[in-house]
């Protein structure tokens, strides 16, 4: 099956500091992945692991230092010149539903604007019909929305409204950057379920960027775990999260509190050196905290190894195990 979106060897470096002391941080370090049609792909990791930078590059808000993004066979220079073509296929959902909408603007204006910009309807009636249909898909209706301001909705409703807005152009891929982290706990699952429904009913793929492994497990088909700019493990969600191979994935997985008072944590964890120190590490970026660290980890960056369908970036798995499996 042809991939919907391919990210090849993407790298982004930022320069921090002033003219005297300068530090180069590789926020995204040579990562590659692809998203298939009708698939939810999760990009998970802690804050500062480069997951949002990756999303910003895919959306064209940020120029990559090197690497390429191929969408429907077209490379990124081309995409930038055809903004309408690009955004018609790919739409974004952001973290803060209250920040997405201007508080002084009636919400339905955003919908009409999108319809106009993409020439989706000829008349106002057609536009209303289209908008209503998209709102129905997220469990709302045009009547509920008409003439109201963002402050009249809850966070969960606003997030659903922004998903409906993104659906107007019939996108094939949605990039959702932490879409539920600011939504109330009792409404969170309704948004996550919505992504599942969109995938099943409309065949929309989702790049689900999150730090919440529990919802990532629940909703996605494949997952990539990022750590300090690298993808350290990638594969089907069942294998990565239930039988994690990379020590960092294991640590993350164990750090999710179980929702069961009989399964409390017993061991203690080491917390990280500062973020910068880890980014500047020569070998494996996780070497400073890894319980299974070896000498080689401190000097040499591990290669990507495939064990069955799972990609692991760790010295624990020697390269010849690849062939054996």
């Amino acid at each position, binding site marked *: 099956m042809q991939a919907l979106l391919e990210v090849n060897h993407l790298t982004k470096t930022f320069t921090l500091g002033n003219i005297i002391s300068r530090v180069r941080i590789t926020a995204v370090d040579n990562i590659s992945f692809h998203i298939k049609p009708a698939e939810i792909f999760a990009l998970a990791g*802690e*804050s500062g692991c480069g997951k949002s930078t990756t999303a910003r590059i895919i959306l064209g808000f940020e120029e990559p230092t090197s690497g390429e993004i191929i969408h429907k066979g077209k490379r990124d220079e081309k995409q930038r010149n055809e903004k309408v073509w690009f955004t018609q296929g790919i739409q974004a959902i952001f973290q803060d539903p209250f920040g997405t909408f201007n508080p002084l603007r009636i919400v339905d204006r955003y919908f009409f604007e999108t319809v106009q910009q993409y020439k989706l309807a000829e008349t106002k009636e057609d536009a209303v019909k289209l908008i209503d249909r998209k709102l129905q898909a997220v469990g709302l209706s045009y009547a509920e929305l008409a003439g109201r301001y963002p402050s009249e909705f*809850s966070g*969960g*409703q606003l997030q659903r409204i922004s998903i409906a807005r993104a659906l107007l152009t019939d996108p094939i891929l949605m990039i959702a950057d932490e879409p539920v982290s600011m939504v*109330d*706990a*009792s*409404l*969170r*699952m*309704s948004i*996550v*379920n919505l992504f599942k429904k969109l995938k099943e009913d409309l065949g929309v793929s989702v790049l689900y960027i999150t*730090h919440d*492994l*529990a*919802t990532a*497990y*629940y909703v996605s088909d494949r997952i990539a775990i990022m750590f300090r700019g690298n993808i350290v493990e990638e594969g089907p969600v069942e294998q990565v*999260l*239930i039988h994690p191979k990379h020590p960092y994935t294991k*640590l*993350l*997985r164990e*750090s*999710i*509190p*179980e*929702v*069961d*008072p*009989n*399964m*409390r*944590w017993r061991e*203690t*964890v080491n*917390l*990280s050196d*500062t*973020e910068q120190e880890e980014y500047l590490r020569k070998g494996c970026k996780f070497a400073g905290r890894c319980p299974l660290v070896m000498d080689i980890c401190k000097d040499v960056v591990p290669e990507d190894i495939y064990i069955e369908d799972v990609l692991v970036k760790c010295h624990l798995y020697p390269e010849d195990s690849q062939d054996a499996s």
Partner: protein
Amino acid sequence: MTNPILRTEQLKAFYVLDIHGEQKVVKAVNQVDLEIQENEVYGIAGESGCGKTTLLKALYGAIEPPLRLIGGKVFYFVDGLGLDVSSLGIEEKRKLRWEYVSYVPQGAMSVFNPVIRIKETFWDFINSHGGGKTRDESFEIARGQLHELGLPVEILDAYPHQLSGGMRQRVTIALAALLKPRIIICDEPTTALDVVVQRGVVQMLKDVQAKLQNSIILVTHDMGVQANVADRIAIMYAGKIVEEASAETIFGSPFHPYTQYLINSLPKFGDKSTRESAPGNPPSLSDLPPGCPFHVRCPYVLEICKEQMPATSKLEVNHKVACWLVEERQDASSS
């Protein structure tokens, strides 16, 4: 085990706002009865805007306009003596704070003075309580405290912005535990932290509690953290405590329909079955529906729910629920 350390009776704290001559009342804490025992972690869970933080302010005696104490009382039990918090003067309250009850507010970003070093903040604390110590002596105490809690001592010379969010949060907890208070009130201590850091903070809270053998009131909407730390949990909805029980009961056999939604909607590893959120939206505290505030979203709604708020009844010794379904069930079992 009845060794109460803090008790509220029918506590009511409302925000009374005056907007263009129109009075708006936000019923943030509405008739809350709770009793916290010595040497326990008491969790309070609920979603944003349910009144958790306001309840903490009332417990801490930090009621400032527009927040008003409308009714009810908060008692602290100091050496077996009940003290009514609202009747205390400023000086008495100041003496109790940090020595008897301390508070870790939400957002450790804003706790520290950004232009002085961490050690100066420690000095402020030690100097204004207890007193009679020189600067060097108090720095020594601060160093001892950090060392005991496994934090690097060098951070005392740092400015707050030089520390990571997780480190700042842990220093805040160290500061709150400095004067060995009997109660530590923590407002969302792990929110906005990464999972691994969150685990470190939870670990430290447990260490502090084990060392001081005191009570911790932990407010967080994160049920995973509650499951990991709390001994007893209260579920708050629209300014009221709708259910209170041991952590095992809350997670194992929740009774209130809201608690059931809250627990059952949590995704679990190894189980991909569909999870449903509660339908509808949380109510606005300034415009509550009549009767039980959850009735608009409740799948088991009865006629009486729309008219009257159910009283809190005991399902078992340590399991309190405010729901009409309790009576329904008791009627069914007695007939």
